[in-house]
C-alpha cells in the first residue's frame, strides 16, 4: 500500500483496549439496536445529509451492489447478493436510513476484473451511489480500489481475504488472514496435538499469503513442522498426485485452501483415495470451505473435515436463528448460508449504523463515524469496527457433517483483533 490512507494503524490504541469492556458495552447496545429508531426524513433535510451530490432524495437513498452474476465467480458471489438484498429489505421494513428507503442498482462484474472496475466507476460517477456492497475475489477488489479512492466511494467487502491492505474507502466485513488462521492452528495444535502440517492451495494470492502466515505460525509459534506446500492452478481437477504425496509424508494435518471447482474435485478424490476424514488421520483443516461450497462437494464427501472461520450457519444464538429464518423465507428453504454470505449481510447494517451515527450520507462523515461502530445484531454475534476498517470478530472451528452443516466445536473466548499487516508473519 502506498498512500497515506494505508499507513499502518496505531496499534497501541486498540490492543490496549479492555476486551471485556467492549463485550459488555456490546450487549447493552444489542438491545437498543433491536428497537427500530423512528428516524424521520423530515428531521434530516436532504441538503444537510447529502452535501456531495450523492443519489439521495427526500425519501430514498441509492446504493450499489457489485458482484459477479455470470462467469466462474457467480457460484460464490450469489450468496452475497442474496444476503445484501435481504439486509436492505429488512432495513427498509424498519423505516430505512435517516427516514429514507434504500434503493439499489445492481451491476454484474462478470467474473472479470476490468469489468468490475468499469462498473464500479459507473456506480460512483454516473449513479452517484452512496455506498457499494460488493466484490468477492481479491483481484476484483484490487481492480476497483483505485476507483473508490479516486472518486471517494465507500465499499463494503465481505470476503475473508489475505490482508495486507487497508483503504479509507473500504470496510472489510470478512476476516483478514491472521484472524482466520491463527486461532484455528492454535486449536488444532492444542487439542489434537498436531505436529506436522501439509499446506495446499489454489495458486493465487489468498492461499499463498494465508499459507505463508500459517507456515510462520506453525514454525515460529507452535514449534511444529511444515512437511509440504503445494499449489495448483485455479480450476485444476486432478489431485491424485498430491494425495499420493500426502500419503507418503503422513502429515498430522492437511491444511487446505483450495477454491472453486477444484474444491469439489479435491475432496471427492481425497475420499475416494481412502482418506477417511472422520478418522482424523490426517486431520483436514480448511479455511476455504463454507456451507456454500459443501453443496457442490456433497456433505458425505467432506464429513469429518474441520473448517476455521468466523461464522457457521449452525450457530445457535438468537440473532442467527432469526437471520437464517429470514434468509430462507426470502430465498427458499434449500438455501445454505456460509461465512461470506453472513459477512455480506453485515455490510448494509454497518453502513446504516455509521450513517445514523454521522447523521449524514457524506462519505467523509460516514468514514469518520465508522471506527467503533458496533453491531449487536450480527448473526455471528457482536462485532465492532476497528480503526483499521476491519471487524473485531470471534473465530470458530466447525466440524463438517454429512448433511452439509458444521458443528461448532470451538470458538475463541474473545473477539480477535484484525491485524492486516501482521508483524512477524511477513
Amino acid at each position: 500500500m502506498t498512500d497515506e490512507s494505508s499507513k499502518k494503524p496505531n496499534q497501541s490504541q486498540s490492543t490496549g483496549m479492555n476486551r471485556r469492556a467492549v463485550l459488555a458495552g456490546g450487549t447493552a447496545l444489542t438491545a437498543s439496536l433491536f428497537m427500530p429508531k423512528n428516524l424521520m426524513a423530515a428531521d434530516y433535510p436532504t441538503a444537510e445529509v447529502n452535501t456531495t451530490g450523492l443519489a439521495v432524495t427526500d425519501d430514498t437513498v441509492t446504493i450499489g451492489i457489485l458482484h459477479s452474476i455470470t462467469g466462474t465467480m457467480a457460484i460464490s458471489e450469489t450468496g452475497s447478493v442474496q444476503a445484501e438484498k435481504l439486509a436492505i429489505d429488512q432495513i427498509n421494513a424498519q423505516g430505512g436510513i435517516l427516514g429514507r428507503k434504500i434503493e439499489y442498482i445492481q451491476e454484474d462484474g462478470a467474473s472479470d476484473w476490468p469489468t468490475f472496475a468499469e462498473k464500479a466507476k459507473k456506480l460512483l460517477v454516473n449513479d452517484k451511489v452512496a455506498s457499494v456492497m460488493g466484490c468477492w475475489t481479491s483481484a476484483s477488489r484490487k481492480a476497483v480500489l483505485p476507483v473508490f479512492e479516486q472518486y471517494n466511494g465507500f465499499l463494503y467487502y465481505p470476503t475473508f481475504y489475505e490482508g495486507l491492505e487497508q483503504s479509507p474507502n473500504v470496510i472489510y466485513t470478512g476476516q483478514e488472514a491472521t484472524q482466520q488462521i491463527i486461532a484455528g492452528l492454535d486449536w488444532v495444535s492444542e487439542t489434537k496435538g498436531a505436529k506436522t502440517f501439509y499446506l495446499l492451495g489454489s495458486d493465487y494470492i489468498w492461499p499463498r499469503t494465508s499459507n505463508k502466515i500459517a507456515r510462520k505460525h506453525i514454525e515460529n509459534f507452535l514449534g511444529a513442522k511444515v512437511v509440504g506446500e503445494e499449489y495448483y492452478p485455479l480450476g485444476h481437477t486432478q489431485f491424485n498426485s498430491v494425495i499420493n504425496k500426502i500419503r507418503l509424508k503422513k502429515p498430522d494435518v492437511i491444511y487446505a485452501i483450495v477454491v472453486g471447482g477444484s474444491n469439489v474435485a479435491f475432496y471427492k478424490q481425497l475420499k475416494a483415495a481412502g482418506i477417511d476424514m472422520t478418522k482424523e488421520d490426517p486431520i483436514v483443516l480448511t479455511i476455504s470451505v463454507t456451507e456454500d461450497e459443501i453443496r457442490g462437494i456433497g456433505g458425505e464427501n467432506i464429513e469429518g473435515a474441520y473448517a476455521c472461520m468466523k461464522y457457521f450457519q449452525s450457530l445457535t444464538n438468537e440473532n442467527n436463528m432469526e437471520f437464517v429464518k429470514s434468509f430462507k423465507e426470502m430465498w427458499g428453504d434449500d438455501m445454505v448460508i456460509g461465512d461470506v454470505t453472513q459477512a455480506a449481510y453485515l455490510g448494509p447494517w454497518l453502513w446504516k449504523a455509521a450513517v445514523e451515527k454521522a447523521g449524514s450520507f457524506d462519505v467523509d462523515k460516514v468514514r469518520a463515524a465508522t471506527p467503533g461502530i458496533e453491531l449487536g445484531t450480527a448473526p455471528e454475534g457482536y462485532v465492532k469496527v476497528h480503526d483499521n476498517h476491519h471487524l473485531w470478530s470471534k473465530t470458530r472451528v466447525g466440524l463438517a457433517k454429512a448433511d452439509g452443516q458444521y458443528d461448532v466445536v470451538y470458538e475463541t473466548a474473545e473477539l480477535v483483533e484484525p491485524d492486516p499487516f501482521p508483524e512477524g508473519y511477513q
Partner: protein
Amino acid sequence: MKTNTLFPRADIIGFAVLAVVIFLLLPAVLDSFRLNLFGKYLTYAFVAVGLALCWGAGGILSLGQGVFFGLGGYCMAMFLKLEASTPENTAIQSTPGIPDFMDWNQLTALPWWWEPFYSLPFTILAVVMVPVVFAFVIGVAMFKRRVGGVYFAIITQAFAAILTILIIGQQGFTGGVNGITDLRTLWGWDIRTDEAKEILYYVNGVLLFAVLFAAQFVRKSKLGRLLIAMRDQEDRVRFSGYDVASFKIFIFCLGAAFAGIGGAMFTLQVGFMSPTLVGIVPSIEMVIFCAVGGRLSILGAVYGALVVNWAKTTFSESFPELWLLGLGGLFIAVVMLFPNGLAGIWSEQIAPRLTKLISKNTNPATGQGAPAE
C-alpha cells in the same frame, strides 16, 4: 486501377467517417465516464484490426491474441508500477521501493528483468517488440513447419492458457491473479484524472489511426494481395516463388505488434493489467469482435470492437442475467447469417444502393468497394 492506389475513394470516405465518429461524435455525445469506456473498447480494436489482417486476409486464425495484448499491457504496467512504487510511497513495506505485490511475496530486490522498465523509451519499445519477438518465435516454429488452420488456432489457444497459468503462478514477479494494479502516473502526469483520461482517449484514437493506416498500406501493397492469394491457394503462391512462411510470420508479428499497442493503451486508460485479459476467453472474444465487424475489413474490425463491447456493457446493465444469451446468440447469428459481419452488410446491402443513388455513371467494377472492405 483501383487496387494500386492506397486510398480508393470509398476507403477515404470510410476513414473519414470513422475519424468523425472517434474524434468528434463520441466525445460530443458521451460523458467522460462513457468516453473512457469507449476508449477501452477501442484498445480491443487494435487487436481486431490485426486479426482482420491475419485471419481475414491471411487465413491465419490465432486464438492467442490475448497473449500479445497482455504482453504489451504488462510492459506498460511494469513501467507505471515502478513509477508508482517510489520509496516514499512504499515506505511501510519491508523493502521500500519495489512494487507492493513483490513485497507481499517476500521479494527483497527488484528482479533484473524489471530494471529496464524504469525507462519509458525502453518500455515503449518493449510494448511493441516483446509481442513481436514472441510472435516471431511462435511463427517461425509453426509456419516453417506448415502448421496452419485449426491446428494453429488450437496451439495458440494453448499458449494463452500457458501464459495465464504462468502469470498467476509467478505472483511474486507478476502480481499473480490480481494483476498489476494501482497505477498512477506517467512521468509525473496523473493518468487517473478525467482530463488525463480524455487526453488518453485522443492519444488512443490517433494511435488507432496510425495502425489503421499501416494496415491499409499492407492491404493495398502487393503483400496484401499475396495474403489473399495464400489464403485461397497456398500451394500456388509457393510455386510462384514465394516463401509462404515468411509472409505469414510477418503478418502474424504485425498483428502481435498492433495487439501490444492496444494492450499498453488499455493499461493506461483502465489503470491496471491482469491475467484475465491474457487467457482463452478474452482471446476468443477478440476474434469475435473481428468477426462481427467483418473479418475482411479493417474498419469493420473497429466497429465490431465498439459494437460488441457496447452491447456487452448495455446488455449487462439492463439484463445482467441474460446478457450471455444475447452475446452467444450474436456470435451464432454473425457466423451463420452474416459471415462478413457488419462490413458485409454494408458492402453487400447498403453500399451498392448508396452508390447507385450517388453516382449513376460509376463503373460497377470500381464502385462496389465499400469503405469497410
